[in-house]
């Protein structure tokens, strides 16, 4: 299976990426975590504003540990303004693995200037930044890559046909500085910690063979 090169541009500069997602859909969180190295001594700074925490729930460590083993600093911000400030402070700390912010809706503080400031800080200090927008409008933004993420029906479970299998996400890169917009359907391979492309028209047998082969 080919690795999604677009989704893992880690060879380039760490920068600000923005992911839009509907409330109650954690696929964007999965995308963000799949972009961060799993085993690392570097801490993650995870900023959630109060509304996002209500819509999407609080981060849950036992679940996170399946995708990343980095220590996490969690900040429960009051509103979008405070969350953006915390993210900007975090980006100045070059010894962080990544800064992840979750903001619900379109707070006034979240404008082009604020996102541009985040992007510049991320590039200057070399800390990847992710802005997860829950229920937000894709207005003008300084983010270098902007995604729309949605859940798709999962792959079939290897041993239980009725159970959900490996998660599948539809990634819509609708704006990027260094590549043309594209769409992918990817599934997350937990063992290898990578994203695999999923054929749009599922060939059940082929898919099964690939998965068995590992």
């Amino acid at each position: 299976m080919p690795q999604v090169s677009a989704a893992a541009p880690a060879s380039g500069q760490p920068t600000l990426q923005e992911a839009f997602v509907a409330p109650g859909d954690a696929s964007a969180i999965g995308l963000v975590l799949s972009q961060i190295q799993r085993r690392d001594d570097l801490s993650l700074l995870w900023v959630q504003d109060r509304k996002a925490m209500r819509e999407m729930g609080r981060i849950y460590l036992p679940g996170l540990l399946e995708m990343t083993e980095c220590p996490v600093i969690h900040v429960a911000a009051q509103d979008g303004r405070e969350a953006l400030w915390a993210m900007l402070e975090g980006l100045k700390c070059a010894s962080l693995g990544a800064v992840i912010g979750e903001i619900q809706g379109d707070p006034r503080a979240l404008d082009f200037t604020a996102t541009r400031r985040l992007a510049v800080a991320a590039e200057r200090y070399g800390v990847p930044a992710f802005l997860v927008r829950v229920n937000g409008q894709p207005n003008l933004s300084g983010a270098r890559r902007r995604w729309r993420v949605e859940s798709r029906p999962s792959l079939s479970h290897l041993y239980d046909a009725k159970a959900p299998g490996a998660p599948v996400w539809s990634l819509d890169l609708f704006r990027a500085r260094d590549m043309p917009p594209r769409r992918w359907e990817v599934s997350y391979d937990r063992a290898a910690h990578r994203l695999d492309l999923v054929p749009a028209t599922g060939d059940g047998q082929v898919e099964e063979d690939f998965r068995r082969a590992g």
Partner: protein
Amino acid sequence: MDRWRKISGAPDDGVPFALISDNAHGSVIDAVSRAAREAGARCGQRLTDARAICPTLAVEPSDQAGDKAWLERLTGWTRRWGPWTATDGRDGLLVDTTGVAHCFGGEDAMLADMQERYAALGFAARTAMAPTIGAAWALARYGGKGANVDEAGLRSALASLPVESLRIDADAAMLLRRVGLKSIGALADMPTLALARRFRSLGFARTFTRRKTDASANPLHRLQQALGQIAEPVEPLAERTIYRARSRMLEPIRHTAVLEPVLIDLARDLCEQLFADQQGLRRVRFEAFRVDGHTQALHAGTTAPVRDPDHIVRLFGEDLEQLEAGFGFDAFALTALLHETMAARQSGLDEEPPEGIAVSELVDRLCARIGPDKVHQPLPRASHVPERAVEWRPAMQGMDADPQVPVLPERPLRLFDRPEPVTVIYATPEGPPRRFRWRRVLHDVVKVEGPERIAPEWWRERSNVRLRDYYKVEDQAGRRFWLYRGGVIDDGRGGPPQWFMHGLFA
């Protein structure tokens, strides 16, 4: 008494004489001469009672503050025998003699040396050496002269001493005497449990009325301290430096905007003081004194010792604007409330500082601005109840870089603080859901995994908490949820089972 005699070139021991102090109930005797003691006067006695026994008693007011200061100076002098010395109460000195006795030719020789030198100073000293503070205290005051007991002889040496020698207050001693326990030996022979039961309530009552501290009212605690069953540290007499930077203004400052340069100067000054002593601060207070007699203070804390002026200034950051200048500030002070040793560090071979800030500085700033109760590090905890499996440790308490990873079945990425109720359509009451409504949106269940049954922790929770059957479900759009059913039908813990949304999978 001896100090007074030295100072005032005193009458000899033959005259009955006492030093007194005044308290709420009249004059009380603090110290007596030998003749007065023979005549019947005692320490702690009222002066009128003593006069009734010994009409010729001469008195002078005592100088307790002077005694205390003198005792502290004497403690310093006592360091000649051991570096770890402390004052003990109003009239005692403690020396930790671990590993120093051989310098003076053995323990007995050392005790004799102490006696001799104090006598040369003009003091009557009673010395004793024992493996515990409590035992040494008892032997020095109630035992023979120059007693020296070791670990083995401790119990027998203490056995014959009166219960007062246990450093307990008069009420507790009286109580023990009333129940017939007059010596430490008798007390030590009692079953520990019985004593604990009897004196626990006494200790509680005392702390409740705030008359005495717990320790002096609890003979059992004191007994165990004396016998070495409870550790008791020596708190040595050491200087405590206060790191504080001050500045005064010629003209009162009325605008908070110009406070920052003042704070920077203060922080530089403070950091120089800290650097000289290789210290770093953990908590700091900025005080601004107003012309009209008001004081305004700001506090800030750090996760690791800090000696960087810029960082200290940043911690106060925007809080400076919250100060109310009123008629203006004319003086400022920056005090290190808590400081720790911090050795000088070289960050690298080249002198260029690394770009950006450290994680601990980041945590300090986040805590200063957003609040220390909002910044946490989640750590795994041993519990199978989902919401209890995470410990939210305040990040101010320091980061744990390598959390232990527990082995758990698959868990969601997200957990709601409060499980949200959902309405569910199911085929069988014990089975998985077919369709559910959450936040007014209908979801058709396509795939299900479960149930995973999680029973309540009965040792922690009430008896009517219901077990939970967790299902991982996927709806028609592919979103994955973590639902649970609270309880089963007829489990006797409430009505029909209810369904809740608890988490989200990626």
